[in-house]
């Protein structure tokens, strides 16, 4: 037990890194995903086509590859080439990648709303933007909570990929101790930490779903 207390500080530090990547990615990729979804259903073919290609690219290649590309290869790309430090590079990759997934969830949600809702809003004089904000999106949120919850929980665990940029997240911190002390205990502690984080998320999303359960469709 004392050993567990000994290894807690580095593991907590790793958890801090994990939580930072998780929270920043979530806060940035959800609005970006919504914007991409609205562009994807745009009646301008060039806009929706462009977003379609973007989503294909982001979902069609491994997140780890995207992260390595942004960190190692981006500096050598002409014109837009910039050299990002490891943490911002990881964030950019995560946000771009998760926004693509969130975009598809939002799109499916928006398209599942009955056409009658748009017509009902339109004959009352609401503009397209007002219809989206006041009528469609509030209903979309209820419908997409389960897949959003799924994606969010996946994100917690995906953050461990940042070890390829040599950042000390929870899993890499645990592995360091395992290799130093020749014991698997740090892995078990790390697993417990991940479980606690996902448990909090699961509980949070359950609360949200309950809140939206006040009305049926």
């Amino acid at each position, binding site marked *: 037990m004392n050993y567990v207390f000994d290894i807690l500080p580095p593991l907590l530090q790793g958890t801090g890194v994990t939580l930072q990547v998780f929270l920043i990615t979530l806060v940035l990729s959800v609005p970006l995903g919504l914007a991409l979804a609205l562009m994807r259903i745009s009646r301008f073919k060039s806009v929706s086509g462009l977003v379609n290609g973007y989503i294909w690219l982001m979902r069609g290649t491994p997140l780890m590859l995207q992260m390595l590309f942004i960190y190692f290869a981006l500096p050598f790309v002409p014109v837009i080439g910039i050299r990002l430090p490891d943490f911002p590079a990881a964030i950019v990759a995560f946000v771009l990648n998760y926004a693509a997934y969130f975009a598809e969830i939002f799109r499916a949600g928006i398209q599942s709303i*009955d056409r*009658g*809702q748009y*017509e*009902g*809003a*339109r*004959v*009352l*004089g*609401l*503009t397209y933007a*007002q219809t989206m904000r*006041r*009528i469609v999106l*509030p*209903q979309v949120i*209820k419908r997409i909570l389960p897949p959003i919850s799924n994606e969010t929980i996946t994100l917690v665990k995906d953050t461990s990929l940042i070890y390829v940029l040599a950042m000390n997240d929870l899993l890499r911190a645990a592995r360091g101790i395992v290799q130093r002390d020749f014991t698997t205990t740090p892995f078990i502690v790390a697993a417990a930490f991940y479980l606690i984080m996902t448990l909090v998320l699961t509980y949070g999303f359950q609360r949200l779903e309950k809140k939206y359960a*006040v*009305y*049926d*469709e």
Partner: protein
Amino acid sequence: MMNDPMIRAVDVHKHFGPVEVLKGVSLDVAKGEVIAVIGPSGSGKSTFLRCLIHLETVHRGTIRIEGETLVSTDAEGHCRYVPDPEIRRICGKMGMVFQHFNLFPHLTVLQNIIEAPMTVKGLRREDIVPKAEVLLKKVGLLEKRDSYPSRLSGGQKQRVAIARALAMEPDIMLFDEPTSALDPELTGEVLRTMRQLAEEHMTMVVVTHEMAFAREVASRAIFMDDGLIVEARPARELFAAPEHPRTKAFLENML
């Protein structure tokens, strides 16, 4: 402007792909008139109603609402709508009630009614709520003000939809088969509400299969078939003695 009809539609054409749905429909509706539009399904009556409030775009013809042009067609046949803000303003003179209600399920009955007055007209909540309650009382649903639509029967939903449309203070009300999705025992309450509106001299255009309602409440009945108005006469006359053989055949079938 005083002498302009509430609705003037001239030679309205509309097609869905190769299918011609409206083949030149013309109709004037005077203030306070209640028009019942009847006819077999696929005759274009719902499409015509939807064209009036720009839920569908016409391909030829002219539509004027209270003397203001919504869409017009020049001598060369080029059909032009007025700019979007104008469309919204002109269509704002009309309210519409749908077959499937189209209430907003995430809002309570009261919220459904005050949403557009607040968002579109910018009215303050405390100003519109008393008005919404008067409307709810009028349609007999004040005790349901905080219920969600899913808790209501079809007839109650449709009465809320009527109150919601009235909250925008339209000069004209359009009804697209308002009782067709209802159980027969629930149509009466909706028709009563509509009859009450008619008695208050609301200008109404009602697409309906309720022949009794059309005969008793409408000032004029219009029989449409195959994208055209076949017969348009005072409702009692049309039902008592239809002139056109297709009107006759349709009415015989309905009874």
